[in-house]
């Protein structure tokens, strides 16, 4: 056992408070050893214990008739019918991706994939929600471009090799992410209902088996790193970032699934954050049993590793499983076939303790339940959410919508992300019905004839102006995206990216966003089945915008998708939900305010839940009845952007809007609850809308090659599609080069 004395300094270095240390002493009934201190520090880190957020996360709805497994496992599980379930979750890898973009993002993908297949589900889709600092016109632009390049290559490297399609996501640029990019990765897998596995140890005497990569000194204290703000010295933490091996992970996937099918596996968990520590004590705690392991048997990549290092290592591509006693050989045989190491390192015991031995002696002995589930819980003070933006609109310049549209289309947030997603294999598994660029990704489940639709959404600007309303809007938009492709939203996962929760004005952002998200998820009947909280997203005291990201999955029949582009001239263009409402105050949260006016003020757009739901029900029914030739939800950039994106197939539209709103507000306001569609069956589409009490405003007709917009008969803009499209398609690559 390490003889390092436990001093107040050492405790502080482990980011444990004096009170937390006292709690450890009272749990153990003695002073902890150095190894035990390390074990507690990672399990009780913000990243692993959710100690600042747990109290508020309880407000989220987690139950529903399709929910098979809610929060608390490696991933949530939803019944999709036909005897199959899907497992899905979103996780952040923000801090590692700033320090080492390529490996940080790659291991972020690796970590979430393991969370999925540890449940017995084969990963079939990945999506990413990315936030970077500005890559143009900022003093940090060069660094931000490098981070973007590294993150995208890291995701591509891992996902492409592993063989999971990366089917979509979002990518936003904002100065607040300059020193703190956000890399949130969503993964989804499928399996038969009876093949689900849980991370639960059981059966006293059953062997505990370690499989996969050897343990090295990489990633020690990664979880703690993710639980502190960045300082100038953070770059020295590069060794805390792990290195990923997607090939090994692919083998691990195949071997684990095959081993599970032998029936010899009792429980299984991946070693992610806090590695061997987390997997042992959590499996023990869930099963209300003890686990004893002998570190001498743990496969090691380096010599002379201390118990502290072995227990805290976050080396990638490792799993821990409990097998039925006497059936070890069946498990070993499978791993041998895949050329992977599988070693019995201990056994399940009855005393509820995590007992760690090395060279025959005990180096740590801690009750599992207290370690895993009794982490400190904080009701951190929260006041008014931080915001430094004016309430009222500045005097707005005269609108110039003609030039605003191409400028917006070429801006970072709105431009085509093709440069990014073409680096991802979005087709492997031949199940991608709708991939990147669609309102929602659609993945068919070959076994059932059904498809799963997925949308990731978040809007830091909205949430900065109002965390509560911003979170609600994200849920509404995500559900609207799913409804627009014809899917019924059924469940959600969230990734909550915030600053330092010890600051009351940041804590207030977190609390309000969670409450807003809870309200919206309850309303739309999309329970949250799991997710991730990433706090301390600050560098040198500068916090990010509060950025809750929601991933919602929907179910639909497998059919030819209704795409975004208009398909033929002469079709009726309908704005479902109508022109919508906005005012100058709400206009301050829009992309127009950001890109054209370079300002932020006011409030997010106003959301009316009931109206939103009616619009969604209407568009879903219209799409599923085959009445829409194209459909595209309105979101960032408003009507004009939706109209332009719908035109990039070469067919545009001539529309006339009967409204007296200012032309800039009219075209670019981001009021929710609206969908743009084209149809050859306008009467039938309108009848469905009427049934749902939704306005189906006929705004014009599709035409060749151009977009022409008038307001009460007076032309306010005329654009050639080809030039808009080239602005849209070439912007990102031009910025990156």
């Amino acid at each position, binding site marked *: 056992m390490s003889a390092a004395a436990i001093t107040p300094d050492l405790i502080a270095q482990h980011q444990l408070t004096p009170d937390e240390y006292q709690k450890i002493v009272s749990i153990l009934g003695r002073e902890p050893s150095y190894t035990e201190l390390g074990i507690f520090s990672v399990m009780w880190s913000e990243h692993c214990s959710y100690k600042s957020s747990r109290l508020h996360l309880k407000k989220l709805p987690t139950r529903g008739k399709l929910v098979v497994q809610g929060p608390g496992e490696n991933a949530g599980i939803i019944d999709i019918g036909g005897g199959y379930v899907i497992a899905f979750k979103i996780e952040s890898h923000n801090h590692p991706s700033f320090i080492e973009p390529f490996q940080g993002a790659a291991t972020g993908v690796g970590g979430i994939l393991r969370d999925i297949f540890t449940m017995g589900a084969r990963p079939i889709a990945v999506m990413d929600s990315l936030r970077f600092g500005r890559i143009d016109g900022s003093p940090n632009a060069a660094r931000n471009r490098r981070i973007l390049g590294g993150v995208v290559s890291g995701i591509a490297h891992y996902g*492409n090799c*592993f063989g999971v399609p990366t089917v979509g996501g979002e990518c936003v640029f904002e100065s607040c992410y300059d020193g703190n990019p956000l890399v949130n990765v969503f993964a989804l897998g499928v399996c038969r209902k009876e093949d689900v596995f849980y991370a639960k140890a059981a059966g006293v005497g059953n062997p505990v088996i370690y499989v996969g990569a050897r343990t090295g000194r990489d990633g020690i204290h990664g979880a703690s790193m993710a639980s502190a703000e960045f300082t100038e010295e953070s770059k020295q933490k590069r060794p805390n970032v792990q290195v990923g091996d997607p090939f*090994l992970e692919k083998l691990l996937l195949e071997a684990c699934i095959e081993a599970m099918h032998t029936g010899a596996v009792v429980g299984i968990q991946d070693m992610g954050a806090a590695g061997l520590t987390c997997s042992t004590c959590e499996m023990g705690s869930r099963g209300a049993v003890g686990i004893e392991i002998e570190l001498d048997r743990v496969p090691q990549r380096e010599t002379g590793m201390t118990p502290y290092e072995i227990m805290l290592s976050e080396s990638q591509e490792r799993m821990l499983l409990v097998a039925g006693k006497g059936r070890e050989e069946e498990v070993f045989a499978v791993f041998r076939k895949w050329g992977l190491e599988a070693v019995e390192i201990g056994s399940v015991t009855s005393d509820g303790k995590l007992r760690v031995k090395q060279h025959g002696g005990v180096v740590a002995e801690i009750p599992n339940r207290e370690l895993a589930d009794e982490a400190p819980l904080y009701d951190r003070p929260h006041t008014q959410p931080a915001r430094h933006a004016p309430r009222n609109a500045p005097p707005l310049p005269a609108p110039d919508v003609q030039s605003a549209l191409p400028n917006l289309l070429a801006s970072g947030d709105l431009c085509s992300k093709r440069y990014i997603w*073409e680096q991802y294999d*979005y087709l492997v598994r*031949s199940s991608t019905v709708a991939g990147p660029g669609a309102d929602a990704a659609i993945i068919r489940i070959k076994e059932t004839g059904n498809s799963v639709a997925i949308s990731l959404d978040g809007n830091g600007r909205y949430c900065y102006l109002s965390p509560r309303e911003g979170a609600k809007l994200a849920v509404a938009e995500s559900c609207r995206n799913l409804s627009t492709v014809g899917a019924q939203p059924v469940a959600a996962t969230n990734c909550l990216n915030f600053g330092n929760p010890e600051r009351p004005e940041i804590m207030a952002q977190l609390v309000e966003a969670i409450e807003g998200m809870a309200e919206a998820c309850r309303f739309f009947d999309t329970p949250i089945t799991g997710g991730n909280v990433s706090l301390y997203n600050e560098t040198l005291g500068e916090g990010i915008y509060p950025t809750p990201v929601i991933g919602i999955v929907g179910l639909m029949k497998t059919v030819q998708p209704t795409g975004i582009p208009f398909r033929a001239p002469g079709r009726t263009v309908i704005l479902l939900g109508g022109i919508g409402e906005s005012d100058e105050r709400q206009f301050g949260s829009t992309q127009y305010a950001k890109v054209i006016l370079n300002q932020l003020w006011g409030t997010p757009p106003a959301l009316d839940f009931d109206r939103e739901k009616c619009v969604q029900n209407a568009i879903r029914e219209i799409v599923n009845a085959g009445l829409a030739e194209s459909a595209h939800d309105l979101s960032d950039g408003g009507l004009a952007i939706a109209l332009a994106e719908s035109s990039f197939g070469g067919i545009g539209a001539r529309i006339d809007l009967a409204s007296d709103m200012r032309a800039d507000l009219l075209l670019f306001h981001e009021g929710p609850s609206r969908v743009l569609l084209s149809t050859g069956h306008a009467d039938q589409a309108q009848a469905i809308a009427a049934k749902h009490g939704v306005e189906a405003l006929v705004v014009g007709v599709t035409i060749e090659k151009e977009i022409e917009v008038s307001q009460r008969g007076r032309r306010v803009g005329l654009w050639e599609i080809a030039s808009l499209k080239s602005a849209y398609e070439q912007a990102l690559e031009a910025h990156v080069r």
Partner: protein
Amino acid sequence: MKFGVIVFPGSNRDHDAFYAAAHILGQKAEFIWHDATSVRDSDALILPGGFAYGDYLRCGAIAKFSPIMKAVKKFAADGGLVLGICNGFQILVEAGLLPGALIRNRGLKFICREVLLQPGTTDSPFTNACRKDRTYRVPIAHGEGCYFADERTLDELEAEDRVAFRYVGNPNGSLHDIAGVLSRERNVMGMMPHPEDAIEPLMGSSDGLAVFQSLLAAAVRA
């Protein structure tokens, strides 16, 4: 007809190929693990896409030593039909069953995109159902798909009508726009694009079917 789909550690379009053969074509298909020493009763072999052994060295450089490759070579030498797609093409090249090499894409980035293919010849078991007067929409998904060979090899490929497919709008810098080539005996073909991912309207294109239909037609004739 029975397809054998070879599975290397790291193959990841093995299921796509299997699905195309078994579910879309309605033929028999089975996976053959890389350490098998026989291709059993397969009528045609598919070496699927993926990252065999992680492709950390040169793509396909390790896979060519897999035990099954001996049997694949024997099968090919006996006139058996062998189709290598993407990583499978890279492996066939490394194993010497096809000429040339596949190097990093011209832009040095992985590209996943639908491309247009022009059949270079219809005189092969893999392209007999294609028509030369039209193009085929099939996706690519690779980082190292730039076809490279010395002048003499290229001349030989052209002279012997062994370019199976060419890109229309070369995405990766391949010499002579080559997307797929045939062996001298024309019973082995490698191609970088993925016909197995373009076999149903749901996937956005069914044009890849032509390759499989060609194989079926060839098998019936044989």
